[in-house]
């Protein structure tokens, strides 16, 4: 039995005069507590994979099982998702954005305690009542991450969450992600096209190529990982090799 199992997942987009195979048979098993990072070129199907897991799109073929139960529209996988853009609700304060998953609940106003922990974990102290327009992009992305965590999902999906940030903010948030991951409470499935970022964060790197999995590379290095050691360099070469046939 596996925790989360993705079986022969296919997605075909029908355009006017052609078919695009965004995913052509993805098979993947994820264990609880893993930090999986999927790398792939633009158009390799990364976003499509996450969108199907999040229930935003429907697969053309294939199945997803969570603890041996098939995930369907009626019985969806419980996910929290962070997109490349923060996608905060501009009319809600930071606190309300953090609790956005619970906004329709009747006892929403009693959830205040929950934000205190999140605000602390994401270093957003003092910004509880700020509006999204007042936040830097890095800060906004922290709130988006907090929103996904507050939902307490089975798995956190991240679609190039740091892709739009500047180098320094990205480095800081990578460390934050590691810190949150090391609390050991959550399983992460992240997508990026930054190989170095993948290797800094992942316990396992999945290389996605033309809509299917090319290779799966276990990373056993300690956190925080430094780039200038032979092991890290070897892994970079290995992933780059898998990504790019022409250099093989």
């Amino acid at each position: 039995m596996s925790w989360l199992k993705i079986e022969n997942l296919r997605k075909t987009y029908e355009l006017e005069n052609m078919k695009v195979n965004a995913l052509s048979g993805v098979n993947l098993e994820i264990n609880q507590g893993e930090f999986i990072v999927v790398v792939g070129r633009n158009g390799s199907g990364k976003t499509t994979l996450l969108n199907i897991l999040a229930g935003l799109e429907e697969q053309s073929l294939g199945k997803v099982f969570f603890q041996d139960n098939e995930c369907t529209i009626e019985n969806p996988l419980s996910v929290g998702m962070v997109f490349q853009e923060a996608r905060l609700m501009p009319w809600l304060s930071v606190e309300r954005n953090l609790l956005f998953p619970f906004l329709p609940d009747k006892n929403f106003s009693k959830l205040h305690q929950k934000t205190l922990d999140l605000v602390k974990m994401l270093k957003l102290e003092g910004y509880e009542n700020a509006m999204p327009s007042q936040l830097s992009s890095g800060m906004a992305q922290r709130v988006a991450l907090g929103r996904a965590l507050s939902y307490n999902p089975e798995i956190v999906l991240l679609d190039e969450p740091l892709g739009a940030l500047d180098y320094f903010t990205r480095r800081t948030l990578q460390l934050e992600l590691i810190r949150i991951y090391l609390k050991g409470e959550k399983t992460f499935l992240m997508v990026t096209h930054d190989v170095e970022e993948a290797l800094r964060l992942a316990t396992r790197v999945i290389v996605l190529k033309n809509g299917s999995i090319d290779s799966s590379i276990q990373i056993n290095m300690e956190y925080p990982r430094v780039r200038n050691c032979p092991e890290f360099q070897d892994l970079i070469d290995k992933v780059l090799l898998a990504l790019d046939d022409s250099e093989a």
Partner: protein
Amino acid sequence: MKSIKNSIICSGLLVPIMIIFIWWLGSNAFWWNTFLLPSPTQTASAFFSYLQNGELQKHVCASLSRIIKGFGLSAVIALSLALLCSQFPALLTQIEPTLEFFRHIPPMSVIPLLILWFGIGESPKIILIILATFFPVFLNTLQGIKASDSKLTEVAKVFGYSHWNQFRFVVLPEAIPSILTGLRLGLGYSWRALVAAELVAAASGLGYMILDAEKLSRSDVVLMGIFVIGALGAFIDYIFFSFLKLSLKKGYML
């Protein structure tokens, strides 16, 4: 002293104060005939004498009740129709050409028909306000809902929001700025339409008061009526939107 000066400048009172000052100066120096443009003191005394004999209150109440009924009714109709059209595009396709036809008819042009059908009672005025305010509310609401960002609805979907909750907690709050613009325009138009109607056919209301004063050659009362309409309009706008924004904040919409 300095703080009073600053607060006058900041609150935008500088322009009105200057206008009143020039008006006062010009009247006292006889730059113009004060029968054509009465002085501030004449206008103020007209205000107080109408206040004292209760005429002003009577006309204000008559106009205000028409605004509340007409604009209230119009807002309810326009908002519900816009919500329905946003959910059922087929409905919009059916009624769009008809609405487009009515949109171009100046409400004032139907006054003769309304008088013919309803006399000079309350209904023609209320109908006129509805005609004048329906479109700004309807079109702005519809446009606000249509412009909703699907990326934000996706977020709600991920967190298991039902279709209704996606609408209630994402699409509608996103549309609120346009809806407020529509309501604000509509409220302004309703005063124009009302006073026009009261000028043509009425026995009460601020428009009637102005017309009556014209017949008596009381230009001070005409001027006073104009001021009352402007001030009352701004006041109602302020009260209505402060209250609306407060309740929207409570409902997580603003």
